């Protein structure tokens, strides 16, 4: 099911022509309408007419989250407030919140891009979408909501919380699809179990999960426990919200990016230079069509790589491979780069362990220490100390082998690790607090 055949299957050459035209218009627009960008462009000695080919994007200045914070709330808007019909805001968990605005056309574009995503996931007319993303300032809830309507599906505006009730609604309303965070999907499966309901018997066929990083093995776990196809969706409020890219149900291999609206680059997070095609680096996005708050070369901090080989679903858009972590979530432990997802994969490959874990990083003297807390469950519980200790050693050995880091592994009681409603808190870095 392809929502916009013209743009989603456009020959690459034609797509690049369209991107260039849009990029030139964009630079012209921000130069004249956003004082922040005018100043940045002038500092670099760049005039809008200097952008002659797509590769020239690299001469444009980067935009970071801090720039949005510094211009809080409306400093980066390119239109007057009379033209803004909606505001959203990021949670601000890692600092001051950021605000984004949408014009009437932005809201429509967003709905249609999210509609593309849902169709790519196989969700369309006749489907009932249980939308468990939070409704409110967070872009997830409303983004998925309007997308579902654009895709012609029936939407249940559930929002977050009241998990037991959610299970009843999914069951009674015969929801065929669900949108939520991947950790909440697992929480739903667990809660269903507690209610004596086999989560596999729920009517759901497909799940669209995003808003937090997850791994391939977590996908397998969700698919097995809910008996659904689990797809990864990508988006960030600064760029638009959910709907920037999604995996297609056909290939389930990389997220098709809406390149007619977003110009993508992958750069070395330290030098800022582009990496070789297909190499891993930080994703940088330029919004080509956004009216209210267009951004040049936004640094997403997401580490990934782009794949441009044709996909069997027929779309010609580049695919972003699963996000491997955040350039700012990356832990450096005794000089070794460690991403939480790598630990998660190891846990899921260990028999019986659930992906409920927490990493505690500390420093003893001059040495960094890593403690991996893993929840116990009945499958692995043994009444003999040596059984549990050998499990701890097994995980410790795998971490050492695959990541080259010595970690202590500690079993903790179930639900000792905060999760469910929002994003699971995966990392506690005590080194920062000590500094």
């Amino acid at each position, binding site marked *: 099911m392809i929502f916009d055949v013209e743009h989603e299957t456009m020959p690459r050459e034609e797509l690049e022509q369209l991107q260039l035209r849009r990029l030139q218009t964009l630079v012209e627009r921000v130069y004249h309408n956003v004082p922040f960008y005018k100043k940045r462009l002038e500092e670099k000695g760049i005039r809008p007419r200097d952008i002659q080919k797509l590769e020239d994007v690299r001469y444009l200045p980067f935009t970071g989250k801090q720039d949005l914070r510094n211009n809080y709330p409306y400093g980066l808007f390119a239109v007057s407030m009379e033209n803004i019909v909606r505001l959203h805001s990021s949670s601000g968990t890692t600092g001051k919140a950021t605000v984004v605005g949408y014009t009437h056309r932005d809201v429509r574009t967003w709905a249609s891009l999210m509609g593309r995503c849902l169709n790519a996931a196989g969700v369309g007319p006749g489907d009932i979408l249980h939308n468990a993303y939070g409704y409110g300032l967070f872009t997830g809830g409303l983004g998925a909501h309007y997308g579902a309507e654009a895709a012609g599906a029936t939407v249940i505006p559930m929002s977050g919380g009241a998990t037991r009730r959610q299970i009843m609604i999914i069951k009674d309303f015969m929801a065929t699809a669900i949108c939520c965070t991947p950790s909440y999907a697992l929480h739903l499966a667990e809660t269903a179990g507690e209610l004596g309901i086999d989560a596999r018997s729920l009517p759901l066929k497909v799940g669209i999960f995003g808003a937090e990083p997850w791994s391939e093995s977590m996908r397998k776990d969700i698919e097995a426990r809910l008996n659904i196809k689990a797809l990864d969706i990508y988006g960030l409020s600064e760029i638009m919200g959910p709907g920037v890219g999604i995996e297609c149900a056909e290939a389930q291999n990389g997220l098709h990016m809406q390149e007619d609206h977003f110009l993508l680059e992958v750069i070395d997070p330290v030098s800022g230079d582009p990496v070789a095609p297909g190499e891993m680096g930080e994703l940088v996005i330029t919004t080509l069509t956004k009216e209210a708050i267009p951004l040049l070369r936004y640094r997403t901090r997401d580490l990934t790589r782009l794949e441009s080989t044709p996909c069997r679903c027929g779309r010609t858009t580049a695919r972003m491979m699963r996000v491997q972590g955040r350039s700012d979530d990356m832990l450096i432990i005794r000089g070794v780069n460690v991403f939480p997802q790598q630990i998660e994969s190891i846990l899921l490959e260990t028999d019986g362990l659930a992906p409920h874990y927490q990493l505690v990083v500390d420093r003893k003297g001059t040495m960094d220490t890593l403690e991996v807390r893993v929840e*116990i*469950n*009945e499958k692995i*519980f*043994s*009444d*003999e*100390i040596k059984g*549990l*200790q050998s499990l701890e050693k097994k995980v410790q050995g795998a971490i050492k082998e695959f990541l080259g880091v010595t970690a202590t592994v*500690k*079993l*903790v*009681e*179930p*639900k*000792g690790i905060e999760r469910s409603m929002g994003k699971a808190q995966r990392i506690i870095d005590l080194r920062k607090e000590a500094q």
Partner: protein
Amino acid sequence: MKVDQLSIFLENRAGRLAEVTKILSDTGVNIRALSLADTSDFGILRLIVSDFEKARTELKNQGFTVGRTSVVALEVDDQPGGLNNILAILQAENINVEYMYAFVHQSSNNAVIIFRFDRTDQAIELLKKNNLTIIPGQKLYSI
């Protein structure tokens, strides 16, 4: 002949053990025997209780991870060499004791010891053959 033992995973932090005993007290379950094995970060509490199912259901509802293990309760002569005789019999047949602990009450004039063997069924056969007194679960729960 086997006895159901309840095993509970406990994080090593203050007050956690008391939470278990509080739950059992509130549900009216009596503890018949117990042993606590621990490491620096977790412990395993092993209990023989008056009502296994009731205790297990309630502890699970309160979020504890619990397991069931089959153990053997044996009368042991309360005199020098009493335990040694039994261990010698087991050793001769290469049956290992994973762990053991003493029962709170006495049965007649003998001590009662709870054993966890690596091969429970063979151990029971062997003990019976040697005319040792095994206390069945039902009797033990109500002592």
